[in-house]
């Protein structure tokens, strides 16, 4: 079972990478690109009791996969795991 974790920089944290990419997009003609935020995307292949592992997974999203000081995360569980 594949679960997905999307980590993004918090709004208040400057994202110079995103700004550089936004500028490149402007140069390449996408003038409407107002803001770009670059985060991290993880695919995790989980075996066994997926729903039962969700609490641990959430804990690790907070403690390992993201840093709550600077990042938010979103955990996407497949529907049939719930």
């Amino acid at each position, binding site marked *: 079972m594949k679960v997905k974790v999307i980590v993004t920089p918090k709004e*208040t944290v*400057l994202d*110079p990478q995103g700004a550089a990419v936004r500028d490149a997009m402007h140069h390449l003609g996408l003038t409407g690109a107002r803001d770009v935020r670059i985060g991290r995307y993880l695919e995790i292949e989980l075996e066994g009791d997926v729903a039962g592992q969700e609490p641990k997974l959430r804990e690790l999203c907070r403690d390992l996969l993201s840093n709550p*000081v*600077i990042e938010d995360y979103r955990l996407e569980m497949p529907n049939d795991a719930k």
Partner: protein
Amino acid sequence: MKFAVIQFPGSNCDQDCLAALRGIDGIETDYVWHKETSLDGWDAIVLPGGFSYGDYLRCGAIARFSPIMRAVIDDARAGKLVIGICNGFQILCEAGLLPGALVRNRSLHFVCDMVTTRVEVAETPFTRGMPVGTLLQLPVAHGEGCYYADEATLRDLNERQQVLLKYCDASGRVTPEANPNGSVENIAGICNRERNVFGLMPHPDRACEERLGSSDGVRIFESMLRTLAGDRAAA
């Protein structure tokens, strides 16, 4: 006094730290591998610079879960002196021993340079003998050294005088031009509330001999030594 230099996979300033500390009279230094689980017997702990775990995920994010970190956290909470340099600073923030975080340099460039830093708080265990305004020449070498903390944390840091070092120009002025990485308020180093845990991006370990361009780094380690000697005398 015995200092422990923790070696994580990917640490690369462990030897700089060992060489710097062994050059100071009164300090004995050992390496401690990150798989160890106790730091009993050492008076101070050094988390060196480098790229622990290849900087994967975030700088310091995986190292903070190394077995030795349990001992580092327990000993830090018990009052032992801990200094984290560069990647060591990142690990201390990830571990929650210091507030805030270190993010990508605002310029996106890796900076490798000699910088001037200004002592902001005197008579901490790390700044003994250095009045406020003392300038220290120290090298930096990092890609993720931009210190970030939210407004509330920043206010707290300032109110409690936990900002120990700021980037400044040659005459001691804290200016945007003197900021090598975009750190908020030019912050180069902070300590915890209890003042026994210090993290900084510049490398005192690489500034311990005049022939390296500066020996100002010695003053930080000597300050730690004097603090430990004072504690022992008082005990």
